[in-house]
């Protein structure tokens, strides 16, 4: 699985999120979606192995009628950040580089900017929270022998 598919699976294991959609979260409460926002090469070693960075944005729709609910929502985002920090590393990933499928694993997942992102005209249906996720992963290109 590539890094996008892998992160979908990692997030699906977090118990306080519902089904993870792709890119689009509809306006219904508890709707969640993961958007991939870019991939870049961080560094490579003399064997050709690569360390890469992939960024995501997670959008989720939660109730926000009171400060209590909003505090709870922020708490869930915090728990998700801890969860990713502990459970994402060492998860297997594959990448196709120059036509060759290479194996690798996630090194780390860091979260930032977890906050209320969008408020619709009426808050009765919920508001949109976002969480930015930066995932560092390593790809082995087979030059180790």
């Amino acid at each position, binding site marked *: 699985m590539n890094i996008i598919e892998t992160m979908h699976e990692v997030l699906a294991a977090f118990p306080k999120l519902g089904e993870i959609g792709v890119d689009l979260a509809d306006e219904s409460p508890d709707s969640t979606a993961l958007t991939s926002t870019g991939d870049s090469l961080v*560094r*490579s*070693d*003399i*064997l*050709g*192995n690569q360390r890469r960075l992939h960024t995501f944005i997670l959008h989720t729709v939660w109730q926000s009628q009171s400060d209590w609910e909003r505090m709870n929502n922020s708490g869930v985002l915090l728990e998700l950040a801890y969860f990713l920090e502990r459970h994402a590393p060492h998860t297997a990933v594959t990448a196709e580089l120059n036509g060759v499928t290479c194996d690798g694993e996630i090194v780390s997942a860091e979260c930032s900017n977890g906050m209320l992102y969008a408020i619709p005209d009426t808050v009765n249906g919920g508001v949109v929270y976002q969480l930015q996720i930066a995932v560092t992963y390593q790809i082995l*290109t087979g*030059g*180790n*022998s």
Partner: protein
Amino acid sequence: MKTERKLMAHLINGTPGADQTPTWERIGADLEEFNIEMNAEVETTANILGETSVKLAGYQPQASVEPYYADPDTALSKLVQRIVDGRKMLDEAKTDVLEVHLWEGDSDSSRVAYKESAIIEIVSYGGDTTGYQVPFNLHYLGDRVKGTYNVTTKTFTPDLEV
């Protein structure tokens, strides 16, 4: 066309000793750069005729392996740790290094390679929270031998002397 960096392979014998079968381990994982500094001994003199003569008397090659993350399952890590633990010196810190030209030779069973003895100089051990690290320097001893390396069987065969 440029030669890819990964085609110049650097291997270290993790089981040195006349009575041991070499265990060639390739270094390079997590190494963004690995240079053998030649440290040439150069004497330059100018005469009264305005001519310059340059004498290249020799080399003292040296390389730095940093970072080196210890992996207790590998023979090289065990060798490095023995040097650390026993504060080994002289011949007890000696091993062999191999440079394999993966772009040269008939096939992976016969790549052009050069073997040379080297002393492992431990720079430090410990490191930060990313992992236990033991960076070291290699001091090459000049007894360079040309041969071929079999990538599959991981064996070096010196060329026959003519």
